Every structure is written in C-alpha cells, then in structure tokens.
C-alpha cells in the first residue's frame, strides 16, 4: 500500500512540476541591442579606397 502511495505521490509531483510554467514578460516594444564583433577586411577596404580615389582623380583631372 505504501509503495503504491509513493508511486502516486511521485506521479502527482511530476504532474505538478510539468504543469508549472514560468513566463517571462518583457516589454515587446523594447529595442533589442545585439553587440557583435565585426571582422573587417582591411585589404577589401583598401581596394574600395583605391576605387574611390581613382574616381575622384579621374573626374578631377578631366580625363
């Protein structure tokens, strides 16, 4: 009898635990900030800088 009660108690505890829900309520309008490290390709930046400076020089020298 006691063993049966233990089993029942255990089942009841498990049901009680699984029945509990923890709900976190936050402000849905709060902005989310994500801090990420951006890997910058310096060689790529230099290529872009080259392109832009060439464009400026070409337009400026009238060629």
């Amino acid at each position, binding site marked *: 009898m006691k063993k049966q009660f233990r089993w029942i108690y255990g089942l009841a505890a498990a049901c009680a635990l699984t029945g509990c829900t923890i709900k976190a309520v936050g402000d849905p309008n709060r902005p989310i900030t994500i801090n990420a490290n951006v890997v910058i390709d310096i060689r790529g930046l230099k290529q872009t800088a080259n*392109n832009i400076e060439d464009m400026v*020089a070409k337009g400026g*020298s009238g060629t």
Partner: protein
Amino acid sequence: MKARNLILAALIALLAWPLPLHAGQYDLKEMTPEVQAALSARQSRYTQLKGLKSQSILGETHHGYLKVLRPSPEASALADAENHDRGIIYRAIILQHALGSEGLAAVEKSFGAVQLEKASPGEMVQLPSGEWVQK
C-alpha cells in the same frame, strides 16, 4: 559526344568570363545625394588640392584627411571642405556595410594608406608612426 562538347564549352566559357577584378568588397552600395555631392565636390577641387600638396602647403595624414602644413586661408578653407566631404564618404561606407563602431578607424586607416601610396613625389605625407616625410 555532342553533350560532352557542350559541357566542355560551357565550362570554358565560365572560366573565361571576365571577373570583376576591380570591384571592392566595401564599395558604396548606394550613391545617396549626399555622397554624390561629396564626390562631385572632391572632383571639382582635386586639381587645386594637388597644386597645394605639390607646394607642401597641404599634406595627407595617415588617417585619410588633409592637414594644413603652412598657414594659408585658401588652403584652410579647401582642406576643411575636403575633409568634410571625405568624412561623408567614410561614414557612408561604414553605414552601408554595417562596420560598427570600429569601422571608422579602419576606414580612415585604409584611406590614409591609399593616399600615401598615391601621393606624388615631393608631397608631404604622414607615416603611420605620425612622422611627416616628403615622398
């Protein structure tokens, strides 16, 4: 045999397709009116600035901006306007490619390096160490 030749021809065509060798990874994606105006202004004052640089009145700093090395009202006004326009272009690159808070330093450093490379002999340039030298 025909299918094999077609596949071979397609592969050759694919390999021979001209690659965009000069496309920069961080090229401006969008030419906003502000950026276009900055570029046009830079083009219009290019020859003047070249002249002032050749006289060592202006010099290129290692972070991509002009510095007045010998006092001159004309040079100061031109340098201010040029630096303002360069800043617009740098910030546009940073925004359009989401380079973050460290992006400005990287962009300025890259443009500074390019200006150093493109400087003509006799022009004053600032090395990354901060030292000014005549190229």
